[in-house]
């Protein structure tokens, strides 16, 4: 670290929020994905003007800056791949205001999304984006990754709810985008550009999100299928019958087996797949809707259909789904979690391709995901110390992405690009598509200060390297 720069940093930020000891630096060298990169300094800013000054300083001394939320990124988003300065945003969390009249919330970037959920629900409102990490991840991280979860099917992703931002630009200016109105068509939609930009175009310092009235009730069903294709048909017929469930989740046979051996809960180990369907809304309407969903599952060949009658039955159905992640990590220490997404009509085809990839490389590959919106999570369970197998994993991952894109899908449904998917960007966007994005990045950040090494591949990088 440049000593002169360090001296100046100490005039901007109080000492107790600056870390330079080795133990502290290592503590910000990882996220929930891969790789370990040591920053030179970690700073915990608490307001926009501190950040603005830091960014200006970083431009002067050409120090890379890496904003970081709770570090739950699965794509390497906050990793300080080029050293420099990590901005730990978790302590920038003072504001969480619910504006009930205007149906919106104003929050600091370090606020944990789950706290926003709670606060909104306390007054009968609802913030729908619900990544499984919401009790840990920050709203700033959610916005930067454009996160979502099972409810994405009906309620969309984070970007559908962000209507205004305060952002420190890569040159250190503080700007506001959007505002408090749901309708806003003034000029370019910079709000949407920042959402999902993974900390490469600006540091989010305040967020205005839209809230909606909380659905009055919900109903859930579980269906077993002897053939994966049948579950695909069931999903398509539900969606084309004019019912919009709040979630449709799918688990394949490998997943079912994993959950059963981890925590036996009576799942059918010989079923090819199971799906969970949830509807929410007016009690009278959803009673009817869940009945129809059950009927369509049976008509598509479900071997078993169960509609939860009580809240505890409902939670039991969901607990199987929630068990998937822990269950599959029992099968090996390293979990490569992908989130390739295809148009939902292509789910059966994608499942087919994934099966072929599993057989070809003889890997432990399980699939679950948000089938309703085509967002599948193929997970490869392996051991990163097994170099030979990791080489195969690299190839398999590449093929997963190829398959998704060939079927008209995308590299990422919710986890972002980060370091892990950047090599495949050109495959999806084409040369010119990627070039436009690069131009935007260069225009905003001429010194390449903000989160360098993410989204855009390094020169000649063609696939992800794990070993």
């Amino acid at each position, binding site marked *: 670290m440049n000593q002169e720069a360090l001296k100046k940093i100490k005039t901007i930020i109080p000492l107790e929020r600056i*870390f330079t*000891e*080795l*133990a*502290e630096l*290592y*503590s*910000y*060298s*990882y*996220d*929930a994905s891969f790789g370990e990169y040591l920053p030179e300094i970690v700073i*915990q800013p608490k307001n926009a003007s501190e950040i603005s000054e830091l960014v200006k300083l970083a431009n002067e001394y050409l120090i890379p800056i890496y904003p970081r939320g*709770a*570090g*739950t990124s699965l794509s390497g988003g906050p990793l300080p791949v080029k050293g420099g300065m990590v901005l*730990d945003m*978790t*302590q920038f969390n003072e504001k969480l205001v619910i504006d009930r009249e205007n149906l919106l919330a104003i929050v600091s970037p370090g606020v*944990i999304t*789950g706290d926003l959920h709670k606060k909104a629900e306390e007054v009968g409102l609802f913030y729908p984006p619900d990544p499984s*990490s919401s*009790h*840990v*991840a920050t709203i700033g991280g959610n916005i930067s990754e454009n996160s979502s979860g099972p409810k994405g099917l009906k309620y969309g992703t984070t970007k559908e709810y962000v209507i205004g931002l305060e952002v420190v630009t890569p040159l250190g200016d503080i700007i506001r985008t959007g505002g408090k109105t749901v309708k806003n068509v003034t000029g370019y939609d910079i709000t949407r550009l920042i959402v999902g930009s993974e900390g490469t175009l600006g540091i989010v310092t305040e967020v205005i999100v839209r809230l909606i009235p909380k659905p009055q009730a919900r109903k859930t069903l579980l269906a077993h299928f002897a053939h994966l294709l049948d579950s695909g048909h069931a999903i398509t017929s539900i969606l084309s019958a004019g019912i919009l469930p709040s979630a449709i989740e799918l688990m394949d046979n490998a997943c079912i087996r994993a959950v059963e051996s981890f925590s036996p809960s009576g799942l059918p180990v010989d079923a090819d797949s199971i799906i969970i369907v949830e509807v929410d809304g007016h009690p009278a309407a959803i009673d009817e809707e869940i009945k129809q969903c059950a009927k369509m599952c049976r008509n598509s060949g479900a071997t078993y259909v169960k509609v939860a009658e009580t809240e505890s039955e409902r939670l039991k159905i969901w607990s199987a789904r929630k068990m998937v*992640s*822990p269950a599959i*990590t*029992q099968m090996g*220490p390293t*979990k490569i979690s992908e989130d390739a997404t295809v148009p939902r009509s292509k789910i059966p085809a994608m499942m087919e391709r994934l099966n072929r990839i599993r057989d070809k490389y003889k890997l432990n590959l399980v699939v679950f995901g948000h089938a309703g919106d085509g967002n599948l999570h193929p997970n490869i369970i392996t051991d990163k*110390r097994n170099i030979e197998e990791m080489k195969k994993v690299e190839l398999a991952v590449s093929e997963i992405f190829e398959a998704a894109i060939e079927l008209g899908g995308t590299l990422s449904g919710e986890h972002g690009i980060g370091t892990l998917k950047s090599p495949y960007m050109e495959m999806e966007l084409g040369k010119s598509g990627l070039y436009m994005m690069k131009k935007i990045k260069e225009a905003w950040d001429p010194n390449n200060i903000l989160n360098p090494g993410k989204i855009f591949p390094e020169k000649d990088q063609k696939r992800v390297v794990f070993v």
Partner: protein
Amino acid sequence: MKKTSLNPVVKNLHDKTYNWTNQCVQCGYCLPVCPTYESMGKESASPRGRINLVKMAAEGKIDISEHMAEPIELCLGCRACEIACPVGVPYGHMLEAAKDAIAQSKQQKRENSHFLLKNMAMNQLFPYPNRMKFLGSTVWLYKKSKLDRLIRKTKLFPILSEPLAQMEKILPPLENPSKRLKHGTVFPAKGERKVRVAFFTGCIMDSIMYKVNRLSIELLTSVGCEVVIPNHQTCCGALHAHQGATEKAKELAKANIQSFTQSEAEFYVNNAGGCGAALSEYDYLLKGDEEWAETAGEFAKKSRDISQILTEYGPLPFIKEWKGIVVYQDSCHLRNVQKVYQEPRQLLQSIPGITYVEMEGANRCCASGGIYNLLHFQESMKILDKKMKEVIELQPKAVITTNPGCQLQMSLGIDRMEASENIRSMHLVEILAEACGLT
């Protein structure tokens, strides 16, 4: 990883912990439940951060005593993170192994100002029931004779004077030491004899809080337990294991196993969450020991918290109403390690006349953590004061705990809020006994 092969302490740490640290998928699910992460607000004070630092030390990337020690020592060992972890990283075991490595590494380097005092307490005091009793008796005398005011002013240990002075203020009123339980005694059940249990007296419980022990026996016998106090029992070894003296902990465990096995009791009952956790994990402590592993397994299976026995063999013969609001603060080791949290609540709610209120964050550590509050006074008080705000808001007449450390910490918290006139800190056994008319 060249260093690993050079330094035996690092190698040992690697052998013991590396697989565990690799089990961690760094998802961060443990962050929101960690009290030190909340109070200190940085990753190195979180479970995920600590696991990573142990891993880095095992890989030889950082130094055990220079870099890893402090973040590890600032951990309360409350093990709330273990419950939250979706993949079951055995944090508690890793922590003990890390502490072991720190102790060895510091011995190599002979540094650390706390080292001497800790060693003295652990090797010269806790393992010796007579010395502990002597200490208890001295404290009793000392309180009686009002010498305390004088001592409060002397600055014996520069680091410890403040915490010790604060602790001293809140020590419970002691009974005359002649009332202490005698080892080897058998107390017959009152009425029908339903079961024979052996009682673990503990060292702090026996030396300073023996009144709680005495009342425990009375409650147990009143629900039909025949209670034997096994001879030659000793300290549970929890403090030793938590401070990195695993060998000493094993020695103590063996003595206890021997003592209790001879008692021919169906259950081994204790009334201190921290001790109970240690007892219930003797199987793990002696896992590799051919001679002891099996009996240790049986011992652990028979270990029970008093609230479990009182719930199972109750109801208690209440004769008095207890009017007022009470709140319950979980003992982390009772809740997170022994997984006992319903029974104390049920017992409290069963007291006639009582108003039981569930306190927000009751399951979060109060930061007493063995002797954490002595070693890391400021950090501990930050966590405690936050908890006391929750307590004060509910305006209870009593805060109930199930571990001596937590009970003292609650007293200290109440004292710091200047609320001692209105709120009492009580052991679960004490309030149950009051309602049963026992004194």
